[in-house]
């Protein structure tokens, strides 16, 4: 019988319970989706890394004899070590004007299980005697290629034809970006090709040399120890960088993404489940208060406390089960498209999403734990209720004057309804606190969502609209003499301004911290790469010292005035080590860089007036001519058009907008659930009071105003409290989302507050309309006739 009672009670208050279930479903859906996607990613990552023998360490060198690798094999702790040639080449696809690149990676077909081996999807083995390649599956698909197609590349200034004999992927290029400034993989513009070492050395005239080394460790091997032993061996061959797996570009992005998934998959569900639990707790507590007579009867009939508690816990059980099942099932359903989305970015062969009963069960259990905990807290009062006492109506809450009554000016301003509302807020402190906290969360959720959107835009567009304001950027293959290259380009038709830039790989050290970065050497009066401080004021490089991006300063623990050590393989002196004073810390959202005056950097390196990049301001219609002219030059590795870059960014942002809308919708649902439930509780608890007011001749609108006044009043405080919480959330998000590719700022503007405010107010208003119908439905006579 009690089950029937429970089901009917749930049905009578379905609005409130559904709102509660929805909040719970959202939480569990996010939990299930994220944990499944994370499991899928982790599983395919681990399998892929293991099966393809992913390297534990990497080193880039200028050139080292292939035969030297054999000697390195003897270093204690190394399991396998291999030397490779890696070169980026331009691809010529008829009808395509944009820059298309392939990264050629040499491989030795004789080795059975090479380090960073390719997982071949289809095709045949590579022939050491032929110009044949395996190509990465994403590039293959994005460019509509077929097996046995020939593709044209420019190698060493000459056009060459390569035959595609296989398609596959490698753990080294799960997230394949040509440079870190690319932000995301563009498989139609950049891909990886694997070719036999023998063919490749011939193609580039690199007789029996390698420029890249990869190695794996023995079970007891430590990367740090190997680094210490290997570094001196490689230095004489022009060691550029050496890094462990954890610093490998593709692995960083994949690991960061997994870390973010884990953070979001924990914090978001926790937030929603907490809100749902509080709603459930308050609803059950209210029901226990309303049904104290019924509890008294049950006790009088001889029902034990345990039976009665079990009865009221069954409400929580149903809510938990419904929320858990629905959330779990939706989560599993959502995991598939999410995993597919990840498949677009992370190229792993076994990345797929199956049906996971375990994930649903986990969701249900989590839902039950939260619901039953809230349920027990809500109904434990049953235990203390004496049957005789339960039969009597609850003693009215002590009606003493509230603090606000002392502020006479304020108090006198209020209508009688207003006074009722104010007193009510103070008498039900727990519920008032719930409204404030709930609105605070809804506001902060909305505000931080919006802010994230704005900040992402700011991050991306500031970089290309305010900082890097050239029209075209030409990247050079190797450092060249500034004067000669400027002379060549200055006279090109349409060029209005030309500036050179040196991008120098370096290691910066401060105290016990060190970081490998690229130092940008900029002309003192650069107009095409404009650095500004936090307030937007222009900063100019000084003829001494170094400026650090804020994230770099934070990573090094350095501040203005700190003396940092600058080391670079690009300097003339092989033991180069230079002390520099930090002159400024500049905001930089994209990448992690340091800035120096170009002339000063050139003099410090002592390699002459070298530059690596040219920035041009020029007539847009002449850009194509420039591209045609220099497209195939040996010395040029890339020609970037800023307008095109901006367009791509805008497309990327458009794909994010769906996520933002969903988050905003979630914020609205939370706000709605909180206000709707608090309204329904108020109406049912105070139905006699509200009905009496209607008997006195008040309209339902006037009666509603008592309830709404209370909510608006509390919501204002909730929204105010939401402002610091928004800031807190943004700081936490910025910390968890920032990496070497982006540094997320945590500031927010007035628009964030306006959006947070407007949407919160809208969700409150909608919830109040829904609650108004409950007041209209009050049957005055019945309510007043009902026994105490």
């Amino acid at each position, binding site marked *: *019988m009690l089950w*029937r*009672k429970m089901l009917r009670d749930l049905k009578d208050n379905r609005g409130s319970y559904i709102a509660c279930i929805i909040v719970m479903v959202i939480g569990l859906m996010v939990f299930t989706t994220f944990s499944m996607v994370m499991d899928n990613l982790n599983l395919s990552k681990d399998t892929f890394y293991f099966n393809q023998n992913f390297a534990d360490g990497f080193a880039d060198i200028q050139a080292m004899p292939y035969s030297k690798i054999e000697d390195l094999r003897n270093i204690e702790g190394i399991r396998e070590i291999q030397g490779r040639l890696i070169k980026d080449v331009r691809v010529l696809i008829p009808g395509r004007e944009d820059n298309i690149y392939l990264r050629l990676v040499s491989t030795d077909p004789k080795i059975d299980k090479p380090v960073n081996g390719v997982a071949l999807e289809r095709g045949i083995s590579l022939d050491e005697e032929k110009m044949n390649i395996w190509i990465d599956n994403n590039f293959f698909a994005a460019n509509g290629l077929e097996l046995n197609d020939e593709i044209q590349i420019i190698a060493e200034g000459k056009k060459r034809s390569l035959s595609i004999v296989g398609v596959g992927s490698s753990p080294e290029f799960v997230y394949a970006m040509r440079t870190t400034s690319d932000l995301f993989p563009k498989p139609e513009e950049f891909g990886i090709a694997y070719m036999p070492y023998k063919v490749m050395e011939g193609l580039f005239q690199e007789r029996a040399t390698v420029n890249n080394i990869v190695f794996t460790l023995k079970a007891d091997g430590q990367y740090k120890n190997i680094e210490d032993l290997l570094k001196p061996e490689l230095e004489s061959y022009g060691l550029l960088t050496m890094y462990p797996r954890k610093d490998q570009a593709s692995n960083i992005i994949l690991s960061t993404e997994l870390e973010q998934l884990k953070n979001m998959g924990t914090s978001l569900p926790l937030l929603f489940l907490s809100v749902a639990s509080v709603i459930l707790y308050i609803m059950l507590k209210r029901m226990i208060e309303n049904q104290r007579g*019924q509890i008294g*009867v049950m*006790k*009088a009939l*001889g029902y034990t406390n345990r039976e009665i508690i079990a009865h009221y816990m069954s409400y929580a059980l149903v809510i938990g089960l419904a929320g858990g099942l629905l959330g779990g099932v939706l989560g599993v359903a959502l995991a598939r498209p999410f995993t597919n989305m990840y498949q677009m970015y992370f190229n792993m062969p076994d990345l797929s999403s199956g049906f996971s009963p375990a994930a649903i069960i986990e969701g249900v259990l989590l839902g039950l734990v939260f619901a039953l905990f809230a349920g027990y807290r809500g109904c434990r009062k049953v235990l203390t209720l004496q049957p005789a*006492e339960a*039969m009597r109506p609850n003693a009215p809450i002590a009606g003493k004057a509230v603090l606000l009554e002392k502020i006479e000016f304020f108090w006198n301003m209020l209508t009688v309804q207003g006074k009722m509302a104010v007193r009510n807020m103070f008498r039900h402190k727990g519920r008032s606190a719930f409204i404030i906290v709930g609105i605070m969360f809804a506001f902060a959720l909305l505000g931080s969502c919006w802010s994230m959107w704005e900040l992402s835009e700011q991050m991306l567009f500031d970089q290309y609209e305010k900082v890097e304001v050239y029209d075209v950027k030409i990247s050079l293959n190797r450092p060249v003499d500034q004067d000669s290259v400027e002379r060549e380009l200055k006279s090109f038709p349409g060029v209005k301004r030309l500036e050179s830039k040196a991008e120098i790989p370096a290691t910066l050290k401060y105290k016990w911290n060190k970081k490998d970065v690229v130092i940008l050497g900029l002309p003192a009066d650069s107009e095409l790469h404009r650095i500004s401080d936090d307030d937007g004021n222009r900063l100019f490089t000084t003829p001494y010292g170094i400026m650090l991006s804020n994230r770099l300063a934070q990573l090094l623990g350095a501040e203005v005035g700190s003396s940092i050590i600058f080391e670079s393989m690009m300097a003339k002196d092989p033991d180069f080590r230079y002390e520099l004073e930090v002159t400024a810390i500049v905001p930089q959202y994209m990448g992690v860089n340091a800035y120096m005056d170009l002339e000063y950097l050139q003099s410090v390196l002592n390699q002459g007036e070298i530059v690596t990049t040219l920035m041009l301001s020029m007539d847009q219609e002449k850009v194509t001519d420039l591209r045609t002219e220099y497209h195939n030059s040996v010395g040029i590795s890339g020609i970037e058009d800023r307008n095109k870059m901006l367009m791509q960014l805008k497309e990327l942002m458009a794909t994010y907008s769906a996520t933002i809308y969903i988050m905003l919708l979630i914020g609205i649902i939370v706000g709605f659930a909180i206000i709707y439930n608090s309204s329904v509780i108020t109406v049912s608890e105070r139905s006699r009071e509200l009905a009496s007011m209607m008997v006195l001749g008040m309209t339902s609108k006037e009666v509603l105003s008592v309830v709404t006044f209370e909510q608006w009043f509390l919501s204002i405080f909730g929204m105010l409290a939401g402002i610091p919480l928004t800031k807190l959330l943004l700081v936490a998000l910025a910390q968890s989302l920032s990496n070497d590719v982006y540094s997320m700022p945590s500031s927010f503007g007035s628009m964030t507050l306006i959006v947070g405010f407007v949407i919160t107010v809208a969700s409150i208003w909608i919830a109040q309309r829904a609650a108004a119908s409950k007041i209209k439905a009050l049957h005055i006579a019945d309510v007043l006739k009902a026994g105490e």
Partner: protein
Amino acid sequence: METLIKARNIGKYYQMGEVTVKALQGASFEIYRGEFVVILGPSGSGKSTLLNTIGGMDTVSDGELYYLNTALHNADSHKLTNYRRNNVGFVFQFYNLIPSLTAYENISLSAEIASNPYSVAEMLEKVGLSDRATHFPAQLSGGEQQRIALARAVVKNPDILLCDEPTGALDFDTSIQVLRLLKDFCENSGKTVILITHNNAIAKIAERTFYLKDGKLVNIETHDNPLPPEKVTW
């Protein structure tokens, strides 16, 4: 006659701030199996307090109270729950039916936890409401609700039926119907009925009347020839 309830100097005190309110004090009495007892007294005389202690809904502050050989004065809540579950049936002035359960279900609610209950359908028939089985409390008149409440109390087959002003909210004719049902239950099944009221006329149907005033049991009156309910007027 077998003594069902035995009270020795029982009292119930409530602390209200610094004042101790003595809702019941020094009451001693015995109630026998199969007896119809009316507890009479004005508002605030301690009637409900007495009924609650006899029914195991509340504990006494003082004295000794027994059901057969079971001490109720020092029973823990578990023991009291068992006592209510197996031995006592309650009928309240405002019926206290569960609004979300039908008439039939309200009676079943009680039958489900009893060890030797009557049939629910039979009870419904006895109170003359078989045709109302699927009605919710809100669809029943006051008299009908009270008859369902009575059926709910009796279906458990308890030794004692405790009725707190069962006719207090009913019109005269309906009140007589309810009293008749109570009387039948007492006479036909040999069960004890204890009824509290402030209506002197009802006292005439009882075998004994306990008079309460200011929390004290002032008099116990025995009627050798109690009236049938139909003969009572007010």
